[in-house]
């Protein structure tokens, strides 16, 4: 399970576009590097990340080796109701990670 830091504003007003940030601790191994014995290090990147807001998908990213190590993404969603913002991701090795935060939406 990989570590991540997320930033979701705790409060918002209905109709606001809120900005969320996520930074995942991951080497984003390109598959082009060699180890000390000259063997290729297998490609291993976080290839898929999904953000759901109260169960509905608001953002999806398919990432490649062109994303820097410790991928950082800042994006937006439309605040509608109080609830949960969930992030889920998976890397090439099949390792999954997740993070969640709650947001309180006022009228």
């Amino acid at each position: 399970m990989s570590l991540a830091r997320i930033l979701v504003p705790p409060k918002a007003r209905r109709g606001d576009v809120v900005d969320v940030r996520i930074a995942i601790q991951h080497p984003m191994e390109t598959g082009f590097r060699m180890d000390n014995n000259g063997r290729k290090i297998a490609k291993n990147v976080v290839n898929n990340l999904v953000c759901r807001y109260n169960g509905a998908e608001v953002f999806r990213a398919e990432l490649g080796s062109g994303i820097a190590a410790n991928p950082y993404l800042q994006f937006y969603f439309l605040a509608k109701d109080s609830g949960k913002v969930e992030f889920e991701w998976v890397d090439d090795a099949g390792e999954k990670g997740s993070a969640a935060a709650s947001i309180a939406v006022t009228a």
Partner: protein
Amino acid sequence: MMRHTPNTLRRRVLKGIAGGVLLPASAPARAQLPQSARPPLAELVPVLKDITGGAAVREGRVKLQIPKLAENGHLVPLTVSVDSPMTAADHVRTLYLLSEKNPRPVIAKIGMGPDTGRAALTTRIRLAGAQYVVAVAQMSDGSFWGTATDVIVTETACLDADGV
């Protein structure tokens, strides 16, 4: 190579990016540019074709903010935004970030919808050398819009890719 102002060069790149596939917003789909007028973005032609299925990519609506000079190719900050109201009727469906010279040209494929609220993304990318970075957005009506920005990279990422 001829000298160009940044704007005319960018326009030439956009026009030539897929041999006339990426057209200025006002230009009707017309014959392909002659081979000689095609600037060096040939690597992206098949990639763009895969994405658009041969449809025209018009210039505009997409904005790429990326430093002109990136000191470290392993970590280049980038913000891409698309001029879209992000309503159910008119929103960005998919946003592609492409690199001209990276060993894998598709940097990221982003799925969005009306619930995304704003069609923008900030991230950090790797760049293998000075090159053009291209962003292409597919709107909910199926049309494609794009832009290309050149970046100078002093320390390149992916040195090992060339077997160095």
